[in-house]
């Protein structure tokens, strides 16, 4: 078995799968980082991803167009985030409970809409999913070519978004505004920043990321919609946001580690390691909890997180 693990094919496959499986988690983590940096915890993430997965899938099923599916999923994510904005930003309700409400609502809605459109056929409908795109020249490099440079377009886009979100948050005026609101909304208001509008825009951006992250699972990773397609990836993204200390690059690193564990456990199963496969399925969640423990003491939570902003409360 050892020789199998160190074979070129195994390593290439493992890296490729790691990058593939971390894609939706990186996307969702980036979305959550933007939202939380502005001071809003969005626990609607898991349900929003499921709704994005359903809307993206159904749109592609109807039109045959994959990118239209991605676009629709982003819009679906934005729509749900706007509900979240009304509840948690404008009305200032508990962010915890509002978010859980969105997740419960969106999960129900996703499955309701899916059933409504496809009915209950014995064989669930499938679409022709995204195929990996080999980047010319680079994809011919041994091992790296077939792993790093033969990925889905959405994965490449996700990689590009990591530095872009970083630059937005830390190098632009708008990003500074977002971070100020997340730290001290009263100070931001004093210098003329519209706190609630900015938080709404951040929620909307995050929602688009969640929607597309969900759609990645039904349009690229798989070719059908299943009720448990998200499988807690949204909650993992919440964990990775904390693990990455609200920093896009570190959050992505955390997501990559999770993707690696996810890919590794799948391969251990197929190699026929003599352990119940549920033990492997458990490992990524356990390691995520351990990772949270390791950073918990030095985590620097945005000071305004969870606090609704009401000018009258000053």
């Amino acid at each position, binding site marked *: 078995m050892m020789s199998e693990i160190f074979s070129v094919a195994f390593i290439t496959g493992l890296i490729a799968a790691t990058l593939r499986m971390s894609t939706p988690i990186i996307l969702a983590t980036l979305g959550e980082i933007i939202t939380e940096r502005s001071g809003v915890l969005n626990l609607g993430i898991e349900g929003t991803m499921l709704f994005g997965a359903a809307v993206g899938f159904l749109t592609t099923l109807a039109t045959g167009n994959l990118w239209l599916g991605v676009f629709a999923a982003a819009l679906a994510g934005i729509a749900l985030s706007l509900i979240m904005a009304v509840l948690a930003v404008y009305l200032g309700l508990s962010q915890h409970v509002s978010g859980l409400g969105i997740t419960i609502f969106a999960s129900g809605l996703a*499955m309701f809409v899916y059933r409504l459109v496809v009915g209950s056929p014995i064989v669930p409908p499938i679409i022709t999913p995204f195929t990996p795109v080999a980047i010319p020249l680079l994809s011919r490099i041994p091992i790296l070519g077939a792993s790093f440079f033969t990925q889905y377009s959405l994965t490449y886009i996700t990689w590009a978004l990591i530095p872009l979100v970083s630059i937005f948050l830390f190098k632009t005026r708008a990003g500074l505004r977002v971070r100020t609101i997340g730290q001290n909304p009263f100070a931001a208001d004093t210098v003329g920043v519209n706190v609630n509008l900015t938080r709404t825009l951040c929620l909307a951006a995050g929602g688009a990321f969640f929607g597309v992250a969900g759609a990645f699972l039904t349009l690229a990773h798989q070719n059908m919609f299943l009720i448990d397609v998200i499988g807690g990836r949204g909650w993992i993204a919440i964990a990775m946001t904390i693990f990455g200390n609200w920093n896009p690059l570190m959050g992505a690193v955390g997501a990559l580690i999770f993707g690696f564990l996810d890919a590794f456990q799948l391969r251990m199963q197929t190699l026929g390691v003599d352990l119940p496969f549920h033990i492997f399925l458990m490992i990524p969640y356990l390691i995520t909890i351990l990772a949270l423990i390791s950073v918990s003491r030095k985590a620097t939570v945005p000071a305004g997180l969870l606090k609704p902003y009401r000018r009258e409360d000053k």
Partner: protein
Amino acid sequence: MIGMSIVKRKPLPPWVMLIIPVAAVFVTLLITAIPILIAGGNVFKAYGALFHGALGSRFNLLETFVKASPLILTGLAVAFAFRAKFWNIGAEGQLFAGAIIASWVGIYFTWLPSFLVLPVMIIFGFLGGGLWATIPAFLKTKLKVDDVVTTLLLNYVILHIMGALLFGPMQMPGSAWPRSASIMDAAFYPMLIARSRFHLGIIISFAAVLVIWFINSKTVFGYQSKGVGINLNAAKFGGINTNMVILKTAIISGGLAGLAGVGEVAAIHHHLMMDVSPGYGYTGIVIAMLGNLHPIGVALAAFFFSVISVGAQTMSRVAGIPIYIVGIIEGVSLMTMLIFILLTEYKIRWTKS
């Protein structure tokens, strides 16, 4: 440009709090009429089928009680934890823990005198859920790890522990499916009403409502637990061992969810399987909020969601509305209730600028 601000209002008379959940339910059913219309259903016929399916006959009504039992317990579990601001989103996992322990006792403790089987199973199931909930409580108090995230992630951990057991040591010999052997007859919850599934667990959940009400309003611990929820630092300053209070709160909360798991095994399935809960732990969150974290409110809210969930099957059959409308109703009622609670304390003032 129209601006909006939220200002405190004068305290409303207490009876308003009794009307609030009813009003929230009414508004919810108005909103969820939209997906029913979109699904091509007749709203009156659909809701008629829903309520008839849940309440319209002796058997249906008793089934609604059967379904309410685990929901009361998970609702109490969440309400008790939220009251202390211990964000226990892990009732689903704690339910699994209770179900695993209950089936372990029910299958393997055949050496016990039969009159002891049920008490041991119930106590162990409570402790199973309670101890599972101490993990996030310990991580929160000692290591400052966010309880929302850990309780959520631990749901998946215990789900896979259950999977490993059901494909491993607890799998029924000769079965290809992930299910355990059946529990012994002495471990069955007795049925209390003939020609129905009205079982002991329903009485246990009613008793739990009274016990939690008693703890909340008549004991020092209940008072401390609430104090921790209202202001952790003030409670600490006032000499309360807040870590211990959170730990005890977690054990009771997880234990209640564990009892829900015991009931599903001992009264409904009589063996352990992956689908032991259709999300009772998550619905418990909605129930806790709709019940305004009060035990009696939780019992009523649990009954309401039981009506929805039992009735939705009839509605699905009669009016062709997908059963997943249940999730939509749950989500919408949670959000509506939140807004209604807000409106009891604040008013929204629209301003032109």
